[in-house]
């Protein structure tokens, strides 16, 4: 159990996907303009990321490894992720139209979120088991959600600031991300 907690802390704080490992930056910059959007994106990503890390583990261990085609993992994973996103969308539409209405618009964006492919690859590199993979995926998603939502709140405050002209827009957002990443450096060495 403590192993799993360590995996969670590591994925959320110490090796935060966005601020330390630079994964999932596109949605981080793109969907952090409003808190509500950020929360929607976080929920959708958490769902897909956790599921993707489990399914990609299964595909890797029970399809790619037995057939000795592990070098095809990139293609296999991207297909799995695309299928998963599609499946999630259909499932959501059928079971909960309301949820689909809230989260649906974020789903297509997740296919090209490199955090999803990244988590699948990192799980394999680390030799994680099925449960560990699931926890790692979940932790990575929580870490992503945490900084995305906090950043969205911060950005609303930032919009009021009198930023020098050349720094307005993506530039100051990037510099703010730098200072957030600086704060997260404090967690270095925790696990």
């Amino acid at each position, binding site marked *: 159990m403590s192993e799993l907690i360590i995996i969670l802390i590591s994925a959320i704080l110490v090796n935060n996907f966005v601020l330390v490992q630079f994964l999932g930056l596109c949605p981080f910059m793109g969907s952090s303009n409003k808190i509500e959007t950020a929360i929607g994106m976080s929920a959708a990503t958490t769902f897909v990321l956790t599921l993707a890390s489990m399914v990609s583990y299964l595909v890797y261990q029970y399809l790619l490894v037995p057939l000795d085609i592990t070098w095809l993992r990139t293609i296999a994973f991207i297909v799995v992720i695309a299928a998963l996103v599609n499946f999630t969308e259909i499932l959501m539409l059928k079971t909960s139209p309301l949820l689909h209405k809230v989260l649906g618009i974020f789903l297509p964006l997740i296919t090209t979120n490199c955090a999803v*492919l990244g988590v699948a690859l990192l799980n394999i590199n680390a030799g994680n088991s099925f449960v560990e993979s699931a926890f790692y995926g979940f932790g990575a998603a929580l870490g992503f959600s945490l900084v995305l939502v906090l950043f969205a709140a911060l950005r609303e405050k930032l919009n009021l600031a009198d930023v020098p002209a050349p720094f307005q827009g993506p530039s100051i957002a990037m510099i703010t991300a*730098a200072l957030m*990443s600086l704060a997260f450096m404090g967690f270095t060495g925790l696990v």
Partner: protein
Amino acid sequence: MNKNLTSISKQALWQNNPALVQLLGLCPLLAVSASVVNALGLALATTMVLIFSNLIVSLIRHQVTDAIRLPVFVLIIASFVTCAELLMQAYAYSLYLSIGIFIPLIVTNCAILGRAVTFAVKNSPLISAFDGLMMGLGFSSILILLGALRELFGTGKLFANMDILLPMASNWEITILPNYSGFLFALLPPGAFLFMGMLLALKNFIDKQLADSITKHQNAQQMASRFAKDMS
């Protein structure tokens, strides 16, 4: 025709630069820019994938219906990425060890799929390949610039360990700042974000200066023509 190529280059390298303006492919850009050699390795791989995926997409553009367009494009890109990965493992293994994980992630670089969907499906193969090359160079130039800046500020040197990419480059390392104690900040994650933010600001600043000088120029011309009219 020639004008077309010039405008493609201008768009890709400056006005619509994938890294600076569209902010695409930020993840590998920031993660692999701690040194010139890593940046160059990723730049090469990304550019290659861009050229070939654009070329193939353009070649088969009439055979692909809307329904299967996205899966086919993703398949093509993923195939080239896998090729790039295999080739890097075979011919630059030490480089692969240091940036390995970010090669497969080229698949999710939206700049590549974006070019396939918006450009290559509408243009002839050669033009598409050229666009791929220019987009790749636009992305690469920022990647390498960021790598050089971070390596210079972080260690005071440039081109260290170039031999893991180019075997003949074993003594390319140059010390720009002797007795520099190193600014570790530049090499750590916050440094990557900060330097990228500075580059974005620099682009805005240069654009502003250019725009100002153009309006000044136009104003001067207007003044001159008005003056000429008055005189006549």
